[in-house]
């Protein structure tokens, strides 16, 4: 609007720090979900992923808000003001409290897990699942509430964010479990049962993720003019390398083929490549969504 009526250019917010914050929160939520597969839902097969999952989840979620604080011009005031000038109808209030609650809950859950206390591990794991969904769903939700931006303003946004969180989290878990088993165990043997089970989940989540992207873009392409423009911008414009090549080809389609074809999946190097590519692709997705979603001038 500013650009059109007044010939003044819109000052883009520092989107990269926000992208990293979203990315790390996603990785954290994803690895937390994997750790609850055995300790919350009782799938014994995934038990070896429990402890490493919760450690990764806690460390990543302690790191993630640091990027948020770097982005905010007044970091200490930003924490303080959330309590002093509490606004119950602000979406960001809930995000801030989730960012504080979720790591605390994860730490308690982790402590009980390391103490082998099954009952309380399950209890805090069960509380942690909706918290993990909320803390990452929130990142998509806060973008969806940016009503002026057609790319963000869709109810699909939190769901898209949750699925990309889970795929990137699983990819990270595959890599972490491989490293742990190979270098930090006495037998040096990788638990392939677990790795392939994770790879299969990754494959199906990638299918859902690609379907969601298809839904989002097909609706955008048929929506009003601003929506069409931003979809063109992503598919054919300046963002197309990030969106088409990095996010979808490198990040989703090639890893999907690798994890779905048994011959490729059982090749260790290809599986590692798929996991790394997927993690890079999801980082590209965060940058494309946060930066690309706001860079076009509004009408």
């Amino acid at each position: 609007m500013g650009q059109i009526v007044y010939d003044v250019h819109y000052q883009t917010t520092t989107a990269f720090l926000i992208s990293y914050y979203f990315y790390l929160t996603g990785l954290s939520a994803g690895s937390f979900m994997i750790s609850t597969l055995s300790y919350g839902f009782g799938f014994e097969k995934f038990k070896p992923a429990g402890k490493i999952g919760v450690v990764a989840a806690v460390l990543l979620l302690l790191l993630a808000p640091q990027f948020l604080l770097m982005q905010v011009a007044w970091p200490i005031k930003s924490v303080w003001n959330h309590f002093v000038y509490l606004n119950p109808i602000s979406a960001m209030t809930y995000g801030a409290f989730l960012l504080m609650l979720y790591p605390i809950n994860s730490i308690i859950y982790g402590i009980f897990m390391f103490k082998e206390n099954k009952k309380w591990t399950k209890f805090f794991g069960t509380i942690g699942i909706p918290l993990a969904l909320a803390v990452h769903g929130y990142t998509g939700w806060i973008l969806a509430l940016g009503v002026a931006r057609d790319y963000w303003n869709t109810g699909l946004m939190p769901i898209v964010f949750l699925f990309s969180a889970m795929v990137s989290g699983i990819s990270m878990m595959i890599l972490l479990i491989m490293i742990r088993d190979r270098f930090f165990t006495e037998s040096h043997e990788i638990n392939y049962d677990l790795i392939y089970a994770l790879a299969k989940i990754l494959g199906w989540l990638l299918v859902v993720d690609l379907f969601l992207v298809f839904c989002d873009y097909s609706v955008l392409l048929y929506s009003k003019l601003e929506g069409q423009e931003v979809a063109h911008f992503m598919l054919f414009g300046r963002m197309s390398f990030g969106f088409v090549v990095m996010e979808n080809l490198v990040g989703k389609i090639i890893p999907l083929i690798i994890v779905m074809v048994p011959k490729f999946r059982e090749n260790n190097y290809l599986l590692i490549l798929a996991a790394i590519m997927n993690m890079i692709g999801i980082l590209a997705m965060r940058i494309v969504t946060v930066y690309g979603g706001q860079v076009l001038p509004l009408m």
Partner: protein
Amino acid sequence: HAAYQREDGIVMVDPHRCVGCRYCMAACPYEVRYIHPQKGIIDKCDFCSHRVDEGLQPACVEACPTSARIFGNLNDSQSEVSRLIATKAVQNLKTDMGTGPRVYYIGLDQATMEIKREVEFVWDK
């Protein structure tokens, strides 16, 4: 709670509450918010509220050589702004966003804006 509306309708940013997260910049349908380079908080046009409080006109209104900008009380039907709105073809921007805008443009038709956009829109190429 940093953004608020004064009783006279002017939307302001409370410098003590704003922490400079920049979310409102991205969310603003008019793209008029910016981060103050020194203070690190959000700023926007506040119709020179410090001047308005003293009974003066906003600086841009006073400085405009062709008197293209008129500022006044919309509640007063005798004021110049009210008279212009009542007699001229005026338009608000983006009323569909539910912002209840109180800036009126005389003779700003859709065609003018769309032509401008076609010229400016180079992102797709």
